[in-house]
């Protein structure tokens, strides 16, 4: 029996020592507990946002497919059904491209929430800390603005869960409360970001410009004008002399881009795989409807730079640097999120709306954009063409039409056309006009909330018509 006693004693010693033995130590991965402690961690957490912004659905392929094809500026001839249904307005809630946009924007929101939650307690240079936090708020504001615009009532998540027990199910938020949060975040960014910033990083004016856009699309023209004027009056921005140097033959750092997704030889984009014709290394599946072009002057510099014609079909070359990327496919041309031309055109429209007709300031703003389109810098020689006369003598309605027309070409395939059509409630007509087989309806003013999320949230309500 003595050995039994020994055995039991041994067992007890063993079990008490067991607690350490059964402790899992994770040496293969970094986890939250090891991280978010130093200033370098803070920077690496912030950098995650920039990395995710480049994702497929954020400002990558799915984004431009969804926005370009769902409007009247894109036709699709390929055989991928989720893309084809975007182009003919028959997309449903299970569309994978739409889901990509949703998931990528929420990934950016999550990375922003991490910075906003974790950085305040990190010991680091206090001035830098203010900027890190403000950049995170800028991006959170940006993606919630996009999400609300695309899907309307989306959940407004402001926490960053790191474990199963920190996750929770959220209700949908209404438009007003999402926009209130966007305003809070972006106003914080306006006051806390520096007036100038490195290429690819937002500054104070970028936040002001986004605020202007948000109010503009809400048709709150007084507020939109205030924020636009802040950018204009700063004199920090001006139009690039030729659209060719803004896009195809780019100057990475220019005075027109307020905020953009940067591209370089080290960070090539893939938009041209979609957009270019096959002879230039693209898919040839994405086209601009030819009827889209009939109202523009053939000498318009933008047509020359933005498009190419092949077998009576028009393809977007806006993002194609023909000198450095002769065989197409990749691009090192920045993808603009907001640029000064947009501020000018929004400002002109605000003036027109507020004063119930165009003012001198409105004319001068839109005419700056037109004047640029009339000239071309070819072999360093500025050629001014006899087209696009300055706008004069228009009334409220005709000025609105003229601006709308201007924006259509100026911002071709920059993801703005869809929102412009939604704002003017002209989406259905415009899409049916260029795509006879498409069946657009009022439901297309919002995209469907992805089926994946609807199944997880039985209490949510899907956008009408899906």
């Amino acid at each position: 029996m003595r050995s039994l006693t020994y055995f039991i004693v041994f067992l007890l010693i063993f079990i008490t020592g067991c607690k350490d033995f059964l402790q899992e130590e994770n040496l293969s991965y970094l986890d939250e507990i090891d991280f978010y402690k130093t200033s370098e961690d803070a920077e690496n957490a912030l950098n995650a946002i920039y990395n995710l912004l480049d994702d497929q659905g954020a400002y990558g392929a799915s984004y431009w497919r969804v926005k370009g094809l769902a409007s009247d500026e894109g036709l699709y001839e390929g055989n991928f059904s989720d893309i084809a249904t975007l182009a003919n307005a028959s997309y449903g809630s299970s569309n994978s491209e739409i889901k990509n946009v949703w998931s990528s924007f929420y990934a950016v929101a999550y990375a922003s929430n991490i910075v906003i939650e974790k950085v305040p307690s990190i010991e680091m240079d206090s001035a830098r800390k203010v900027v890190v936090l403000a950049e995170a708020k800028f991006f959170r504001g940006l993606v919630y603005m996009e999400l609300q615009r695309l899907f309307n009532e989306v959940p407004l998540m402001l926490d960053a869960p790191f474990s199963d027990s920190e996750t929770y199910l959220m209700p949908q938020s209404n438009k007003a409360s999402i926009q209130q949060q966007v305003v809070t975040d972006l106003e914080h960014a306006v006051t806390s970001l520096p007036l100038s910033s490195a290429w690819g990083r937002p500054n104070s004016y970028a936040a002001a410009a986004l605020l202007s856009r948000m109010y503009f699309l809400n048709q709150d023209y007084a507020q939109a004008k205030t924020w636009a004027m802040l950018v204009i009056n700063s004199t920090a921005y001006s139009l690039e002399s030729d659209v060719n140097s803004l896009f195809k033959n780019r100057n990475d750092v220019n005075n027109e881009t307020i905020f953009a997704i940067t591209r370089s030889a080290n960070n090539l984009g893939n938009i041209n795989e979609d957009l270019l014709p096959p002879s230039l290394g693209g898919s040839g599946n994405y086209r601009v409807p030819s009827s889209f072009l009939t109202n523009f002057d053939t000498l318009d510099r933008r047509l020359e730079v933005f498009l190419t014609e092949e077998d009576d079909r028009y393809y977007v070359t806006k993002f194609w640097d023909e000198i450095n990327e002769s065989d197409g496919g990749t691009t090192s041309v920045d993808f603009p999120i907001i640029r000064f031309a947009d501020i000018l055109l929004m400002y002109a429209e605000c003036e027109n709306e507020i004063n119930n007709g165009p003012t001198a300031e409105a004319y001068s703003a839109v005419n700056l954009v037109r004047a640029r389109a009339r000239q071309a810098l070819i072999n360093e020689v500025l050629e001014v063409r006899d087209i696009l006369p300055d706008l004069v003598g228009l009334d409220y309605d005709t000025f609105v039409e003229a601006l709308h027309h201007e924006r259509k070409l100026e911002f071709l395939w920059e993801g703005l056309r869809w929102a412009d059509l939604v704002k003017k409630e002209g989406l259905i007509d415009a899409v049916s006009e260029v795509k006879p087989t498409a069946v657009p309806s009022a439901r297309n003013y919002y995209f469907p909330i992805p089926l994946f999320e609807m199944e997880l949230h039985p209490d949510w309500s899907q956008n009408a018509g899906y």
Partner: protein
Amino acid sequence: MRTIFIFCFSWMSLCFTYGQLDSLWVEPTSLPVTTFNYLHPDELLIGKFAGTWVTQASGAPGSDYSIRVRGSGSVFGGAEPLYVINGIPHYNTANNSDHIYGSGVDFLSLIDPSNIKEIKVLSNVVATAQYGSRGANGVILIETKDGANEPFSVDIQTFTGYQNTYKLPILLDGGGFAAYQNDVGANEGNDPIYTNPSNFGKGSDWQQQLYRKAALIQNYRINLNVSNNNTSFSMLGSYLNQSGIVNHSGLKRYNLQARLASQPNDRLSFSSSMVLARSESNSVLTDDPDGFGVVTGAYLFSPLLGSSDILNYQVDNDGLPMNGNDGRSLNLLSSHKILNPIALSQYASSFSTISRLFWSSHISYDITDRLTFYTQLGVDGIFNEDFSYFGSVLQPELSVGGIGMNAKQQSFNWFNQSYLSYQVTHGSNVLKAKIGTEIQGTLVELLSGQSRGFDNEKLGYYALGSGATKTIGSSLDEAQSFAAMANLDYNLRSTYDINLILRTDASSRFGGDFVFLPALGFNMDLKAAGVLSGVDWISGANLYAGAGRVGNQQIPSYLRFSQLDQSIFYLGNTELKSFVPTRIASDQLQMEISNQFDLGGDFLVRNGFMGSLEYYNRTTINAFIEMPMPYYNGVASLVTNSGVIRNSGIEMTAGFKNQVGKFDWNVNANIAFNSGKVISEGSSQILYGTGVYGMNDWLIFDEGEAIGAIYGFEINGMVTTAGADIATLDGEVAKAGTISYKDQNEDGLIDHSDRVVLGSVTPDLIYGFSTNMSRYGFDLSLLFQGVAGNEIVNFNKVILNNMNGTGNISEEAYENMWRATNQQGDLPISTPNDGKIVDQSLVENGSYLRLKYFSIGYNLPKSLLEKIKVQGINIFISGNNIFTLTKYSGMNPDVSLFNSEAQNMGADFGGYPSSKLWSVGFKIGL
């Protein structure tokens, strides 16, 4: 612990163990008797045990088998059974690393099957509860030979055999392919490319060039057994050299195994066993879900090209690569780069070695007559090295050069089990009690390097330093577990037996929390109880029931931690580092727990017939789930315990043995019905299934559906006349010659929400039948096995039936292609998504019946043997995979692209084809 033997048929080499007809004495005597040609220990399980489903994942030499005992007990965790080799438990894994091409060698294959004395499948809860938190998916017990009861014997065995492919798809030849290309062009309104397609004749037959017509296999074994009164010793040396049926692939295996058992006095006994084994294998790129492998390459690569062409070009009338508008050669495939399969098999090669050192010992000491101390200790080290090289010749359009990889992995597993047992006998009543602990640790360390751009390709993977760009990786996976167990067994008058197991288990993987896993079993000997007193023709029967809980912890380590991954990217021209969580912590993760109930009975009839019937019901109450998460929580999914799945079924076994004069005949037949259902899916249906050729989410996990339910589109039919009223997947007006799908939700759109369940990858029924007959020294053995009621997703059809002109197709598909002139054709000439759609056409019935093993042998007569002073000589011819009855159109219905992964069963795509093996050999017993 010793299980209670109710009765045992030594003649049948089958035993009932607590009501389970689950034990098989592979070679009960040392005399050379004819057995089948087994190359892998898992083959011993095929067709022999009711309810044990064995699938050969890949036909590559040495690759692993997938085993399911009583259905799939886990979907998102591992569902393989626990292996216990000479008392040391572990999970079998294969060398399926990213650092080799094709399917890797399975670590279990390093145990020579011919040295196995006994293999058992435990599936009843009273048996599996002994293994507690690892028992839920069944337990395979393997004991190697120990030389007992053999004064002295030496057996020498050798065989030589040939393997060949048994079914290859018939593809279009050169002329047929050219004609097909013309048709594709015509459908798009283009002029014919080839003025006279038949000029191209046969063209290149890539499959014929890829596969060996007769791949040689050779095996040599020598086995020594010696014993005296209290000590026995057994030793085996063996060598296997197997060429693969795909050129440039093959396996060599060296084994040295020994076991010593001794009982120096009445109180003490011990046994030690060891395995020293090494395998060396060459593999080529097969079993690749993205379709870049040699098997899919041989399907797709244009027969109009020759062996020096690397890329799949379009050719012109003269057979020269055709140039597009931009002057570049037109590639046949745009979205998937397909390389010349012969060049790929030559220049993308892997070499890998595995060394396994296994040692196990136990000591048992009777402290008193009633009290015994037992301790078992084991270590198992597996060391493998992988070398791969991807030649620059395979990337003619790039200037990056070849890619060399080298990885070293070592896994180390140690185990100790100690207990005290107490036994008291009172008349014919026996009480046994046992108390003990079990402790185990596993560790896997990996170091890998990759390098590309070598100045001289001769050096390759042995000179990673000379490459231009290099990456290094390393990782560690460590887990420990502990269990305490008490067992009480009471046997009343050798008639009634009651067995109680109390066990508590903890694993570092689940935070070290103890989980209580009890089981209770009851058994009754009907004969002894007098129930069958009037029925003389039944010589024995018993009835048993058991209930209990068992666990499963097959899930990757560290899931309880969030994981931050680094990536390097450029913002403008600035290189930046970022860290972002790619996984958030499953901080509430627990092991899977199954509640199981069994009821059954066995009987033995006097004239040599026996049978067994069992019912089981195993409900996994907190099944691992890859739970979809709302995206605002940061990740798309999270592993939780929120599922409930149930496997229930009936197993029947019947055996018969008769001896009439010199004619011996025995038969074993078994059949099992299993129904595996998802009882609860957590919060919403889960789509899963790893991407195959760009198609993912081909399975669904949803309440009320079968485990492994296939999810896709139901076909409405061919569109023969264009119509605007027919809804299509791309929302376009339906064109003639396309396929239309059923609008399940009737919303006028065809999209992903119109998918439905199209079948299930798990069989409803598995069966086996084996028989052995011998007379006048001749013996004949046959083993048939089969499954029914399962479906296979035949992804190969996306290639073989795809009419978009991007590669070669099967002859049959071309005949069935819809054309204006062939309105009866049921294969669409144009499809959305390049035809990469999981629909009804890919889902096929996977039922089959196969003559798996065949053997005929002759034992030389005793009179002759005495003259030459040998114990026995046996000459045999044997065959594996002789014939298969199936409606399945692919090469092999017994297939799984993703090996033993529970998440991805039932996919067939470009796997290494399994082969037919015929061999001749002899055994000599000295």
